[in-house]
């Protein structure tokens, strides 16, 4: 069960950091700074960050960056690692050409 989280608006300014230009999501080329900015703008879960920025929505479906994003969110928002739900993986586990996906032995 999720814990209640009040999404209060920060009145303090967003602070840039030296490593903000670091690429976190390699597929969609999303940087740490963009993730931090989205967190500042209220996105507070892995899914919200993902949907707002496309982090983990690229070709590899977050296989490399999921853990990194989780770490950044946990650190920035002070949320325990275990309390952050990662986004659900979905079929297909590997990219599949539509022609192949369509060919599942059933005749039209």
């Amino acid at each position, binding site marked *: *069960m*999720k*814990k*209640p*989280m*009040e*999404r*209060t*608006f920060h009145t303090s300014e967003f602070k840039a950091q030296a490593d903000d230009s670091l690429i976190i999501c390699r597929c969609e080329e999303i940087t740490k700074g963009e993730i931090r900015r989205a967190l500042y*703008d*209220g*996105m*507070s*879960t892995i*899914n*919200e960050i993902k*949907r*707002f920025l*496309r982090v983990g*929505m*690229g*070709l590899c*479906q977050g296989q490399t960056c999921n853990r990194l994003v989780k770490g950044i969110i946990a650190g920035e928002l002070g949320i325990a690692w275990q309390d952050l739900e990662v986004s*659900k993986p*979905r*079929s*297909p586990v590997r*990219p*599949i*050409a*539509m*022609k192949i*996906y*369509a*060919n*599942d032995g*059933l005749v*039209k």
Partner: protein
Amino acid sequence: MKNADVIIVGGGVIGCSMAYYLAKSKIKAVVLEKEEIGVGASSANGGGVRQSARDLREMPLAMHAVTKLWPGLTDELGVDVEYHQKGNLRLGKTEGHMEILDRIVGQGKLAGLDLKIIGRDEVREICPYVSEEVIGASFCPTDGHANPMKTTLAFYKRARELGTTFITGEWVKSLLMTKGKISGVITGTNEYHASKVILAAGLESRTLAKTVGIDLPMQKIMLEALITEALPKMFPQMIGTAAADFYGHQTDHGSFVFGGVTGLEPFTSDESQPVTRRFTAPATCRAILGYFPCLEHTKIIRTWSGFLDEMADHVPVLGQVEEVPGLTLACGFSGHGFGISPAVGQLVAELIVNGQPSISLEAFHYDRFRRV
């Protein structure tokens, strides 16, 4: 115990839109969301912003949203919601399909919508990628699409900046009534008091409305969608078919989002969480390739499913519940709430602020159901 002027139950696109338009009118609502912002149908839908093929009752809302609200939304919210108004093509392959399209066009014209039947050549002028089998289409040039995830989160972001309080992970279990009027809600961990409660909780709305004796004829339908890898820009139209076997569009990112229907959904939607079925994505791919064979090598990278809250007559319930003063309903969008979400947000906000929306919501009254 906490107090609020207005409580919105549900942090989906409808709840966030209402919160935004209320905040614009200086009413800082408290939005209570069971999970996260935009987790249900708000992030699972195909992003259509469409007037064509809507029930006539919804048409004024859709046309208002498309003419007055969607075009300025990106600037207004400060987030690119990826709205494109390049038309909706509903494709047909057979004479039977064309008859269906004729009926849709007839309906649209009744509402004054710019909607017409186009022939084989004109379809290809608009979208040169369709298969040889396509013989015609209906075309509504003012329809379009947007990014539902970003739209929901943009409403949320802006409403939050304007002072709306959002509390996620707060599962509303029942509505509270005191002295014959709504007085708040009870969640798993808290009690919130307010004289106005808006129910925009999708399927959950049925359960919650029942806690004050309102029975909404709503059912759960599980629909599936899929997304491809990114491709260079091909066509900007929203695509549908007369056969209603799939719909979709190419996103700003370059990937195509397609929804598909097998017809089995009403019989296989009994899960507690949305799941995908092994047979749906292959069926959707076959349907897509039947109209766009050029996409055969395009790779699917993800499929997903989501529940929609379908009303018995496929039209939402919107407006005040007179017998429970203070309760407003905004639910049952039946799979086409995203396109009208800005209008719903604005009109419900007007209802709360002025007691009177600028477009009548009477057709969406909760007590309209007698016989389908």
